[in-house]
């Protein structure tokens, strides 16, 4: 075998694509020819080096924008739009009913101001999350791409905490009237929970004790969690916010919502401020929890309301 042919066959040889006899001939030539052996070794080094270079993950903002666009452009969404021409024919029939419903609804509590009735899940960032359409329905896992209609209940199953990326750029945001579980159902029998909400606009909050209205600018809400009670909090519109530049940990263990600054070792109840809503630093959040476990384990008990 000539050297030029041997060197041309090095690439398919590395990939195992050569017929056995040809591979044998190349190997035999390599064992006898120092120059080709040097080329083969050098190529192998280049290839291994190149394969050791890997691109980093996409930036979160780019990734989120891509997935949202893809979900919005999905064939199913388009087919929904394509069915739109049916509406003009139905519009005249249902318009009077809708008009009455809207007027009555607005009198019953701001129906006209509500958010869009459904929202797509872009990603389940953290936790195992399930949803159901009604109290009697069975729980189903949430998958990226699911479209949640208004009124659906969302429940975190893993550790009392769930982070969802929603279409539209919010994290852990829920459609109107939806329910976010903040406490693991299996661990809340003897725990107490507390939620502090501050809002720049009036919010409607659903609690086990009934609906509470949080007025503008204040609205501290304390929930006492009793035995066997399903604790859930739902805020009209979006539910959970995170200050984008704060390096904090969110712990929902034992029903307490608290922030922990690992540098100052300060634990404070979380205040949700709708003015600071933005992209949740999901990785930061997960890393912060892990870091606290590794470097400040003594602080973890401080998150428990029993202390």
């Amino acid at each position, binding site marked *: 075998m000539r050297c030029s042919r041997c060197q041309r066959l090095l690439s398919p040889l590395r990939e195992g694509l050569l017929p056995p006899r040809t591979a044998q001939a190349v190997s035999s030539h390599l064992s006898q020819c120092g120059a080709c052996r040097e080329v083969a070794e*050098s190529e192998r080094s280049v290839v291994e080096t*190149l394969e050791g*270079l890997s*691109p980093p993950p996409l930036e979160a903002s*780019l990734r989120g924008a*891509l997935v949202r666009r893809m*979900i919005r452009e999905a*064939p199913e969404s388009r087919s929904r739009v394509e069915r739109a021409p049916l509406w003009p024919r139905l519009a005249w029939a249902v318009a009077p009913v809708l008009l009455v419903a809207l007027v009555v609804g607005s009198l019953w509590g701001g129906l006209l101001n509500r958010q869009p009735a459904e929202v797509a899940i872009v990603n389940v960032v953290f936790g195992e999350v399930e949803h159901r359409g009604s109290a009697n329905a069975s729980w189903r896992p949430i998958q*990226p791409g699911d479209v949640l209609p208004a009124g659906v209940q969302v429940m975190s199953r893993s550790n009392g905490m769930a982070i969802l990326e929603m279409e539209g750029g919010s994290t852990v945001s829920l459609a109107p009237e939806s329910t976010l579980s903040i406490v693991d159902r299996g661990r809340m029998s003897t725990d107490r929970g507390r939620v502090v909400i501050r809002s720049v606009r009036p919010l409607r909050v659903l609690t086990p004790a009934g609906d509470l209205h949080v007025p503008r600018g204040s609205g501290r809400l304390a929930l006492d969690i009793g035995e066997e009670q399903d604790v859930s909090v739902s805020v009209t519109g979006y539910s959970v916010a995170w200050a984008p530049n704060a390096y904090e940990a969110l712990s929902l263990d034992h029903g307490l919502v608290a922030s922990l600054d690992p540098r100052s070792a300060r634990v404070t109840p979380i205040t949700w401020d709708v003015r600071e809503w933005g992209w949740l630093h999901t990785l930061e959040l997960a890393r912060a929890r892990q870091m606290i476990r590794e470097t400040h384990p003594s602080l973890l008990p401080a998150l428990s309301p029993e202390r």
Partner: protein
Amino acid sequence: MTDARDLKRLGEALRRGDPAVYAQIVDHFGPGILHYLFTCVGHRETAEDLLQDTMLAVVRHGRRLKHPERLRAWLFRIARHTALNWQRRRRRHPDMAASSLEEELPQGHVTINRARDRTQRHDLRRILEQALASLPSAEREVLTLRHFEQLSSAEVAQVLRVRIGTVHSRTHRGLKKLRRHLQAQGHSLENLL
């Protein structure tokens, strides 16, 4: 994701129009496609725009995916078409502008997993990227797909629509030139590693 069964499962979900698969496709293939587009156009922001165009084309044409097990090659082929269309629109020479690549490369786009420290990583990355940028586009494209994105030779052949023998010969020529370029610059891989 290299498992053929996983690839096939993703491809089948895409063909069904299942939106749950989009996030997985972006996570598994987005970084590699972005890097490939970057080597094609030489501009980070343009590459990100083209990545978006690529992913939207994936959504639009997902149902036409004939061979789900060839999903990776199909994705890169769409990315390549997107880049070529962009180049046609810009009426640029089909060969890529090495100078623009070199301008952007020191800012860091690719990370290395194996090198021992940050300085070493940076140097090795810069040197290899610049060496790649010095190659003719046909050979750089093959080396990028074959060894950066780790497509098989058969997949590279599908992406480029050439015979597998052409892939091998371009790989051979590309590696040879890469080696010479590194030597001419006074680098040896043994020292770099």
